[in-house]
Each structure stands twice: as C-alpha cells, then as structure tokens.
C-alpha cells in the first residue's frame, strides 16, 4: 500500500495508473458480464464522478456543500422535461444526446446564481445555506406541476442498453477524474487550496477569490448535472423525492472523507469502497443500515479524519473538522 501511494504522488504516476485502469475496465462488458453487474459498475462510476465533483468544492476549496445533490436534481429534471412524452407546458421531446448538454448548462446557470449568494458565507453557514437550497428546490419542483409534473413525477422513454450506459459513464468518469488531476496540478487547483487554507490571505495576495470559487462551483455543478441527467435516463422515472434524495448529499461527503478530502484519488477510492460497503450492509442488515452508516461516519471522523490516503501518509488531504473550525475573524471585503 505504501508503494501505491508513492506511485500516486509521482508526477505522472497517478494519471498513468488511472489510464491503465480505464483501459482494463473498458473490456469488462466483453467478458460476458450480466446486465445487473454492468448496472452496478455504472452506479459505482456515477458515485466516483459525484464524489470527485463534491471534492472540488468541498475538499479543495473548503466549502462544505451539504446540498450538492441539488445540481444532480436540476440535471435530472432538465433531462426529464426535455425528453419526456408526458404532456407538460414545455416538452420538446428531444433525444438523450440532444438533451444532455442542456442538463449540464442548466446546472451551471443554477450554480452561478446560487453560488453568487451562498459562497459569501463561510463554514457551517455555507453548509446550512446549501442544505436549505436543496430542500427549497425540491419543494419548488413539487409545486411547479405544469412544468415538472409535480409530485406525481415524470416518465422518461424507457430504453435498455446496459453496455451503452456502462461506456458512457466510464468515459465521463475518465474525463472527470483526469480533469480533477489536472486541476490539482494547475494554478487553479493551487488557488483553490489557498482559498481553503486562508481566504483572506489568498485575496490579499492577488487571487480573485470570488471568481475562483464560482468557477470551481460551476465546474462541479456541470458534471453533477450530467450525472443527474444520466441517472434520470437510466431510472426512466423521476419524482421530487427520488431525485432530491437527502442521503445522496451525505453519501457524497462520506465518500470523500473516507478516501481523503481534497486529494484527487481519495474520492475515487472512497466512492468504490463505500458503495460496495453500503451494498453489503444494505443486503445483510436492511433494518439497521442507516444506523450502521451513522456509526461508520462517527468512527471515520474520530479515527481517520484525514481519510485513507491521509492514514497512508499522504499529507495532501484535509480534515472536515479542521475546515469547519477555520473561521476568519477579519472578513475580506466582498461585493
């Protein structure tokens, strides 16, 4: 394991390893894997993307977003409205590929509007604001019956193509994680970590913190929206409660914490492990699975606050407790 984390910290090591993994994974459907196996793999890829995106704003920038699934919901509903055959006030009946770009774009627009207001808050205040955004959006979607189908939900055209779904998510995941790897090495990533470490200092040293935060937020929202859209398409039915599912927020955060907050590979490792673990707990302890997850979360914060990568000696990771504690008395002037 020590060697493994050494490879990851090499200059091109991580990306090479990642590329080989994607290459190997691309042969999986050819080995005669069943539909349900491909479905599970697709779900894991989906969670890797969600966790990586959350990590960009939560881990690297230090803004603990407790309502990030709102972008998932926006993406899912944009897809739903654009492709559904149900009669709505606005239903253009597009195909999947025609609708896909708009799901990301709508999530970005939503992120810019929301982020412009909420990213001025710090620490727990930001988390609460995003949580309320999440809950409020769910209720708004429920009320806007002519546009969204309201509480009775939307039916999407059923299309079953497990290998196609598998490859779509595999490619998206490859792109997203490589992008995160690049961002962490680029000046953008360094600026984001600088904002996490000391926002006032970053502002005073010439970093336009508002721009960087909004940019990171928008990038994270874009791919989360795409994920939501894909999920809606695969699920063929959406309603406010399954799309704006509260636990999705928490699981995203737990995955990043388990792997190592703020690192590139932490969310990937965390997402795979937690997804499998969750499945195991779910299938064996149906009644207690939330209890077990809660206990797991507490143990995680108590014993490995810096995640698996942190425990392995990678100091590039941040702890959720420390981010929460960072509060700057001198507030930078924000307009």
């Amino acid at each position, binding site marked *: 394991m020590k060697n493994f984390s050494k490879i990851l910290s090499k200059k091109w090591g991580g990306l090479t390893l990642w590329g080989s993994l994607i290459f190997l994974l691309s042969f999986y459907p050819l080995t005669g894997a069943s539909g349900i196996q491909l479905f599970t793999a697709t779900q894991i890829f989906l969670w890797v993307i969600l966790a990586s995106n959350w990590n960009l704003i939560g881990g690297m920038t230090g803004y603990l977003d407790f309502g990030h699934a709102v972008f998932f919901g926006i993406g899912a509903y944009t897809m739903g409205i654009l492709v559904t055959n149900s009669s709505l006030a606005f239903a253009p009946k597009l195909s999947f590929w025609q609708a896909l770009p708009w799901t990301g774009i709508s999530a970005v627009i939503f992120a810019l509007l929301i982020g412009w207001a909420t990213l001025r808050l710090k620490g727990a205040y930001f988390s609460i604001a995003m949580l309320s955004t999440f809950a409020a959006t769910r209720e708004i979607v429920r009320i806007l019956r002519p546009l969204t189908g309201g509480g009775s939900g939307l039916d999407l055209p059923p299309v079953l193509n497990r290998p196609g779904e598998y490859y779509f998510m595999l490619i998206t995941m490859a792109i997203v994680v490589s992008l995160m790897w690049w961002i962490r*090495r680029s*000046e953008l990533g360094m600026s984001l970590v600088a904002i996490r470490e000391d926002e006032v200092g970053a502002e005073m040293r010439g970093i336009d913190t508002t721009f960087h935060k909004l940019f990171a937020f928008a990038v994270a929202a874009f791919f989360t929206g795409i994920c939501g859209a894909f999920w809606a398409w695969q699920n063929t039915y959406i309603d406010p409660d399954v799309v704006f599912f509260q636990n999705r927020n928490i699981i995203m955060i737990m995955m990043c914490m388990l792997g190592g907050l703020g690192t590139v590979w932490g969310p990937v490792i965390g997402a795979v492990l937690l997804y499998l673990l969750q499945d195991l707990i779910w299938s064996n302890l149906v009644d207690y699975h939330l209890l077990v997850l809660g206990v797991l979360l507490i143990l995680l914060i108590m014993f490995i606050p810096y995640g698996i990568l942190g425990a392995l000696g990678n100091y590039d990771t941040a702890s959720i407790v420390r981010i929460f504690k960072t509060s700057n008395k001198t507030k930078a*002037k924000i307009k």
Partner: protein
Amino acid sequence: MSQLPTKQTAPLLEARQVSKYFGGLAAVNQVDLDIYPGEIVGLVGPNGSGKTTLFDCLSCLQSIDKGKIIFKGKDITNTRPYQVSRMGLSRTFQKLRVYRQMTVWENMLISRQWRGENLFVIFKVTDRHTRRRARELLELLQLSRLQHEYAGNLSGGQQRLLEIGMALMPDPEIILLDEATSGVNPTLIETIKDRIKTLNREYNKTFLAIEHNINFISDLCDRVYVLNQGEKLAEGTPQEIQANDAVVEAYFGT
C-alpha cells in the same frame, strides 16, 4: 539616508483623514499618511493603537468609515484587496497567514504576480519565470532546504520568513510589513534588514513597517509615524521621535 525626500514627487500611497470605527471604538481616527516612492517608513505605537487596523484599511482588507486612500494617484477606497495587490501593494500579516497545508514551494508559486483570469485558467500551470523567482527568494531567505515541507510544519519564525517571501513574489512597488521580525532570531533579523536595504536602494522598493524593534526602526527608517489610541501622535525621523516627550510617555516609557 535620513534626509526627507523632496516633496515635489507625488506620494505613492496616501491616506487622507482615514477613520475606522468598531462600534463606539475609533480604532483609527482621522489619520493622514504620505509614503513617497523609495522610502522606508516606520509605524510604531503601543499595543491596540490601531497600527494593524490602519494596515488593513490601507490594503483594502477592511472598508473605511471616513476618508480616502490613494495609491499611485488612484483612489482605491472601495477596491477589493486582490485588485490592490495586483496594482503593486503587498503585505505581510501579524497573525501568520501562510497556507498551512501546502508546501513551501507551492506557497511561493501561488503568491506570484496575478494579472487577470479567464475561463482558460483551468489549463494554466506555473511558468518558468515564476519558478526561478521563487527559487531565488527561497535561497535568499534561507528556506531552500525546506521547500518540500508543508508550511504548517515550519516554526513560527520560518513561517514569518516565508510570508515575507510570499509578499516579495509578485514584485510589488510597496510592501507593508506587519511586525516582520517578531519571533525571528537576531542573525536573521540582520539578514532581513540587509535585504530590505538592498531592495530599497537598488530596486527602489518602498516599505512601510510596523515594528517594535527599535534598532530596526533607527537603522532603516527614513521617517516614523507614531500612533496612539487610533490617532497620529507624531511624525519625524527616528531621532526626532525618540526625543519627543509625548512619544516617550506613550510608547517608549521612561
């Protein structure tokens, strides 16, 4: 060195009747300040006299309640700190603000000169020029051997040196030093002093320094401002200040 600069040149940084209130407390009260290009100016005063608040106001980190701040002929009263920094004003902090979970090297690189952002910021990595400058500055501050260490693991004095390095990275015109020598060992203080002198003489950099180290003040500064309870108590050469009765009573003690 002790002669005052000719008043014909326009000041680099001016404060006009600057006031800052925290509730009923006037932390800075109608302070006037002129810093001319190429000067080293000291700012002294007892604890709680508003020195750091004045620095925060000058660097636009805190909005001022009254008055005006002019930098390079432009009114910067309502500018955001990063814009002021890009105009060529950089500062250090009394309460250390290094990025603790980044390496020393990354800390230096990210304090580079910023010009502007666009949506392609995502593809940018640090250029060679910035790297060379960071390497030179780390060598100068004797931090080279620590460059791959996390900044949070450094000692207080080393972090202070790193902050000075970070303030110098963007090649600013004026540098505000907030107690740059507290917690630094005497030999290194001499090094810092030498470096400030060199920067001042050869590169014509301007400094405004909050200091409690009176040797530092009398060796380096052309002029000194004395603050007391948010108001300007006196102004003059270090020798004049040390002879001023009001200053002796408020600051030096008998």
